[in-house]
């Protein structure tokens, strides 16, 4: 049990996590009905990382996400109907349908965008941190990326520069053990990601990303150090995406046994268990989950009813 988080806060975090799960499952249904185009990268199983980190940040800390960003968007508290609308290509979406899942930005919520290029957001977050330092802000930039992105040059280059310049940025690697089909054991010579931090004179930690309370706690501590000007840090969270990489992934690269084993570490189950241990009733837990699911269902209905853009929305607005 974690003293830093009250039971009502944890129940709230649980509700957010359920809403992210429900969001992803709703999208899956919409794809099969042909109501969504393109592809999408679900974060089922990783909800505790998004909610644990973002609940520990200030609303004024700047977030940069990646291709698997729905959890981060919802954890920051964006309007679910507008996120859903963006994915459906509706004018009601945050970017009017131009960005979609992998290019969704909400500047009024200090969300600098999801990013469709693996590792592409890491220097952008670093640049945001440069601007924060330059303007003597005490806000922090947080970059979310996966184990796959940690093999991009941008990871290494950006960590190096952030450390040289003591920029206020927290690098959060959600290590879900696979870059698409490629397991970390075949892609990352160092085995874990955080061990790369000392090469850049940076503090790095690896933690259990399934435990939302732990994630919240270690993020709070890291953000306090970064905010105090002690330089950037790398936080690696071990997690698991229970779904495929994207919507059409038969997951031939891993066994169903492995998946069943990892599902025992499902963050929703673990959080519900922790809530019960704290004395929260099953009735209250179920009510929170049901409220989350209803929010998502209502958001999907609203997004479906919203209009899509026309020619002028496609061909205008290239330059400011």
């Amino acid at each position, binding site marked *: 049990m974690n003293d830093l988080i009250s039971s009502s806060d944890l129940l709230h975090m649980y509700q957010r996590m359920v809403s992210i799960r429900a969001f992803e499952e709703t999208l899956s249904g919409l794809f099969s009905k042909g109501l969504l185009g393109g592809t999408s990268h679900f974060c089922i199983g990783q909800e505790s990382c998004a909610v644990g980190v973002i609940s520990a940040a200030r609303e004024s800390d700047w977030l940069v996400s990646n291709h698997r960003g729905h959890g981060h968007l919802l954890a920051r508290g964006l309007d679910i109907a507008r996120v859903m609308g963006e994915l459906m290509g509706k004018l009601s979406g945050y970017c009017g349908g131009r960005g979609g899942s992998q290019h969704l930005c909400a500047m009024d919520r200090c969300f600098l965008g999801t990013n469709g290029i693996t590792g592409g957001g890491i220097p952008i977050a670093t640049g945001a941190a*440069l601007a924060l330092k*330059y303007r003597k802000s005490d806000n922090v930039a947080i970059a979310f990326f996966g184990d796959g992105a940690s093999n991009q*040059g941008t990871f290494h*280059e*950006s960590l190096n520069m952030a450390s040289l310049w003591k920029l206020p940025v927290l690098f959060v690697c959600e290590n879900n053990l696979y870059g698409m089909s490629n397991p970390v054991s075949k892609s990352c010579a160092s085995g874990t990601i955080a061990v790369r931090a000392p090469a850049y004179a940076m503090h790095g930690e690896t933690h259990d990303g399934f435990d939302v309370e732990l994630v919240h706690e270690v993020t709070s501590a890291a953000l306090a150090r970064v905010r105090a000007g002690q330089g950037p840090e790398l936080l690696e969270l071990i997690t698991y995406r229970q779904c495929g990489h994207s919507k059409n992934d038969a997951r031939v690269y891993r066994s169903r046994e492995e998946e069943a084993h990892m599902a025992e570490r499902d963050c929703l189950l673990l959080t519900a268990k922790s809530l019960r241990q704290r004395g929260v009733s099953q009735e209250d837990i179920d009510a929170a989950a049901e409220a989350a699911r209803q929010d998502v269902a209502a958001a999907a209905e609203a997004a479906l009813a919203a209009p899509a853009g026309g020619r002028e929305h496609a061909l205008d607005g290239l330059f400011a």
Partner: protein
Amino acid sequence: MTDDERTIYYSKAVNEALDDELARDDSVILIGEDIGCYGGSFGVTKGLYDKYGAERLWETPISENSFVGIAVGAAMMGLRPVVEIMFMDFLALALDQLLNSAGKLHYMYGGQVTVPMVLRTPGGAKGGYGPSHSQMLSNLLVGIPGIKVVAPSTPAQVKGILKAAIRDPNPVVVIENKRLYPQRGYVPAEDYVLALDKAVIAAAGQDITLISYSSMTPVCLAVKEALKPVGIDLEVLDLVSLQPLDKESIFASVRKTGRVIIVEEACLTGGVGAEVSALISEHCLDALEAPIMRVAAADMPIPSALALEKFVLPQAEDIVAAVKRIREY
């Protein structure tokens, strides 16, 4: 200060533009390799580090893609970073952040962000720099939606254009040129900006239009002078802006002379010259008295040996030969 004293190098004009804008607006910062006490590989930022310090000049390790990405992130947050890429060839290392971030963010994020950054880089061959330090890659840049591309040819032009680029709310690539850096010209001392989307008539003429930009504009002007005694009156239209192209100025000159030669230092295929040629064909075919001709670099890497380089790069003689062909058509 006399006009003589205001006749300065192209590189100094760039330096003055940076100095002016750093002084005028504290959101302007410089990012790049060796731009501090060294003064940049071509001496363009000389003196600025002493004047503005490390807070304004962010000297980077050799990490082009990430420091361009850092500029994008800083620009999204309201700063106006001016990035130096030491040689235009190295732009290849930063193409992802230019193509996928700088050019797209304003549009794809539904107008929520602007990316007011400038990327300065010297293109072109200077004589013997070889395959990885000599290319004019304008042809790559004009195919990227969402970035403006300019290639000023004179000291006065580069100062006014760079200042305008820094003040523009969009990403702008300013193509400088290693052969232009040591060229001199009169540059006004006062604060001025030039339009980022306008071509200029570098020299008026009646017979044939030479359309050029960057290093080839002075070459075209020299050809004009050389052919004056034989009674050929060339017009030299300096594009200045490659993206967008100033179509009206191009078409007006073509309609005046009826004969066009496009001259550029980039490879022949699929570039600015090809685009200008296509536009003229689409809009001015009735005005043409001869086929459009192009003088450009061969579609080859640029060899190091000076003896070989001249065969790949466009030379004044090539322009003269094209003039002869187009007159005889």
